[in-house]
């Protein structure tokens, strides 16, 4: 029999993630790459790479669902859905009992209220970079640190400082002031994590915090923020092994469901022509 495959691509503001699933929902390939300026080229490139890993050709992919901030720039996607719905679905695939998911990505922070894998309600920050991954990136950058090291650094903190500025750029100056005044780096970094956690906790409380709370997105890799969130929410916060892929996996799973439901109805969902743009084969 012919096997069918599903791809989910999550084109985020900083990272682009893609996964390919088979019809059992097993992950055959996953690729993550920095999102640059050229979304369309990038989408094609990561797709190629994923296909390579999965040993498949583009024509063998039954359905491609795109999500994330750049979802409209995925030339070969059959449908687009918001990251809100896809994250909810993806997180539920890791933790079936999840009721509240927090996703802190590059561009925004989200709180998702979930029941049985379905999104019920959400809150999100999108007016400014405070309380997002960019907040940490910008500041880590200014301090010449790797953003992935921040978590470990903050674990050494004994007396975290308060970072009062909301504006990322100003917070960066505040940090420099603290350091110049001789405050230990770990205490400053811990202060940053606390600032993010309190903002996000404040926001997600609107959804009424219930266990299990799951934390995804790039920032979920930061143990410092995880601990700070647990402090502010007063409960344990679970982090999946691949916190960055919940969106992409959710997208692929939703695609799979839609195709299957259509098949049950004896329909075939309309799909794009399966080809990657020439440019990407050479360029």
């Amino acid at each position, binding site marked *: 029999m012919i096997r069918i495959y599903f791809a989910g691509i999550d084109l985020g503001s900083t990272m682009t993630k893609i996964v390919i699933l088979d019809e059992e929902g097993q992950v055959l390939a996953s690729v993550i790459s920095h999102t640059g300026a050229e979304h369309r080229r990038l989408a094609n490139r990561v797709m190629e790479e994923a296909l390579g890993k999965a040993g498949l050709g583009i024509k063998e992919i039954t359905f491609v669902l795109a999500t994330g901030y750049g979802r409209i720039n995925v030339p070969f996607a059959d449908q687009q859905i918001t990251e809100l719905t896809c994250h909810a679905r993806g997180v539920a695939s890791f933790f079936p009992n999840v009721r509240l998911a927090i996703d802190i990505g590059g*561009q925004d922070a989200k709180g998702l209220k979930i029941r049985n894998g379905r999104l019920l309600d959400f809150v999100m920050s999108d*007016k400014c970079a405070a309380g997002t991954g960019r*907040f940490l990136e910008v500041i880590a950058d200014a301090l010449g640190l790797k953003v992935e090291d921040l978590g470990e650094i903050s674990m050494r903190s004994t007396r975290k400082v308060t970072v009062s500025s909301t504006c990322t*750029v*100003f917070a960066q*100056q505040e940090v*420099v002031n603290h350091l*110049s005044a001789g405050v230990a780096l770990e205490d400053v970094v811990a202060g940053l994590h606390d600032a993010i956690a309190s903002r996000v906790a404040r926001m997600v409380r609107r959804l009424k915090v219930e266990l299990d709370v799951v934390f995804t997105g790039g920032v979920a890799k930061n143990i410092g923020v995880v601990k700070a969130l647990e402090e502010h929410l007063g409960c344990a916060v679970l982090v999946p092994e691949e916190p960055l892929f919940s969106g992409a996996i959710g997208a692929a799973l939703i695609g799979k469901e839609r195709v299957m439901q259509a098949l049950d109805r004896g329909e075939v969902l309309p799909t794009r022509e399966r080809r990657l743009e020439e440019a990407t084969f050479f360029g």
Partner: protein
Amino acid sequence: MAYFMGVDVGSSTTKGVIIRDGVLEARHILTSGVNYRVAARRVMDELLEKAGLCLGDVACIVATGQGSANVDYSNRQVADLRCCGRGIVRIFPTAHTVIDVQGQSTQVLRLNERGQVINFAISEKCASGSGRFLDIIANVLQVRLEDIGPLSLESKNPITFTTGCAVFGESEAVSRVSEGVPREDILAGVHRALAEKISALVGKVGLEERCAISGGGGRDIGLIRRIEERLGVELLVPPEPQFVTALGAAIMAEEACEEEEGA
């Protein structure tokens, strides 16, 4: 004859000048980095080196700027707003409005003939009104700071930013680039956004016929033109706008000594 030093520890750069008889003896600028103390020390060493002096030769030192507390060798600290006023009237005695575009914030001052601040307005607690917005965008567009202005002037239709946030402005600029929007239109978009915020500040303090610009923004011809369009006046631009506040600090040092002699 006494020497006076002014040190301006700003958010992105640290500037220092030494004057004597109100004449510039030495000036130096360096990036503030992540430790203001170090920056403050280094700028002092460089200044003394250039002027061929030792610290003892300097009668009085005034520190200003947001990192002024870290200038441990200064005799006193003075708010940058006051120093900016003093500095600008030394260069343009008749300038009674100054637009001071700093990395951290943008401030507009009204001055009397003695350079005293008689009214002022400061951009809000968000970097979207400050020079940092420009740095961030220029950086992601890989435009060298000195090219920002000329390039922006080539723009036919400046973009409008959908976000108020400087940091998000960066990602927005990125996606506009991917849509094939020319860099000059993006830069001009930033300039226009800043010019709008600035003209609102000017509206609060009142515009004088003779209006000057200082701070890093004063080196950006693109920004200057946009502001001039909005305000309908020609801005007075000092030769080295970024040193105005440091110069003012040195003048404050001078005044401080005179006071003490007077007292």
